[in-house]
């Protein structure tokens, strides 16, 4: 099967360090994911879709910004696949594109309240923008 995303796929696997071939399709990552319901594509789909080269839908999906980086799928995966690392790699591939920041500084004030800690802000910028 011709894979038109071969270069991107290789890049994602290299930067994430994930080997999707280790996945045995048990779905424990998605079973454990706290953000599952807000995701269009779920952790196990990230693994399967990157493996099959079906990456564009992921790049354009809001799912990228719903991963909480809680690492639960990393710890609970029985095969050591570590899906969160793949989500991270795809997310970076998306926001590193020119003008593709998910969060803009102008949007921020509306999101703030008096108590929100700084770490939430810096984390969001790390996760949503480049």
């Amino acid at each position, binding site marked *: 099967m011709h894979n038109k995303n071969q270069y991107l796929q290789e890049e994602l696997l290299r930067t994430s360090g994930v080997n999707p071939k280790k996945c045995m399709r048990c779905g424990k990552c998605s079973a454990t994911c706290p953000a599952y319901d807000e995701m269009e594509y779920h952790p196990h789909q990230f693994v399967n879709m990157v493996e099959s080269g079906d990456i564009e839908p992921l790049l354009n999906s809001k799912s990228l910004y719903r991963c909480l980086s809680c690492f639960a799928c990393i710890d609970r995966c029985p095969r050591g696949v570590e899906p969160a690392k793949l989500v991270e790699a795809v997310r970076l591939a998306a926001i590193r594109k020119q003008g593709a920041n998910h969060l803009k500084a102008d949007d921020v004030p509306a999101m703030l309240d008096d*108590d929100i800690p700084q770490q939430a802000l810096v984390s969001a910028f790390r996760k949503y923008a480049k």
Partner: protein
Amino acid sequence: MKVSYFPGCTLKTKAKDLDAYARKCAEVLGVTLEEIENWQCCGGVFSTSRDEVATKLSSVRALKAANDKEQPLVTVCSACHNVIKQTNHQMQTDAEFADKVNRYMAPEAPYGGETVVYHYLEMLRDLVGFDKIKEKVVNPQTGKKIAAYYGCLLLRPNKVMQMDDPENPRIIEDFIRAIGAEPVIYASRNECCGGYVAMESPELAKKKSNAVTSNAAAAGAEMMVTACPLCRYNLVKNGSEIPVVYFTELLADALGVKEDTNA
């Protein structure tokens, strides 16, 4: 005992009390926290991507500063701890990454992840000892039923954090026992509160936080302790039925220095 200390941005602003109690308690326990000079924000989240270099340099600088003083590096905030420990681990295990970092920073001696990173809780357990804390308690928190809230960042990824059993941890429970209170075990203590996604999707954070607090309350907890300002924010903001406090505040109370602390 002297250790390097990385407070982090939130502890200088919204969570000043977490910091102040930590410093005061360390004094009582005979630990000198030497704040790293000119530390910079860790970034709040660690990127697992191997080609993210620049965003991890601030952590490496802190680690290197501690290493230069031949001290372990202690953090209180769960997020800072997670970022710094993971960065350190990447310096140890990813030679290509470490090489890039060292070329970029051009230090006199290359840094290879030599610094030992402790969370304040680990410091209490491994360097001070819960037994010693027990001896120093003047105001035991007897009768309090306290639920430890770990969240995600303290324990995971376990391979890197190596702090405790990620599914059945006991470090905070042991801490709670050391100060004379009774720990309440509940399953959601290592589930996510919603984290930074609270900014963009408060609904998600609310759902996650409520699941945690209601699970703790159902297990009979009267109070929750946490080490993370963002966890505390999410739990409190989303209407926890029970109070959520920083573990350092409880410790200060138990050691009898809560009132003296300028929090």
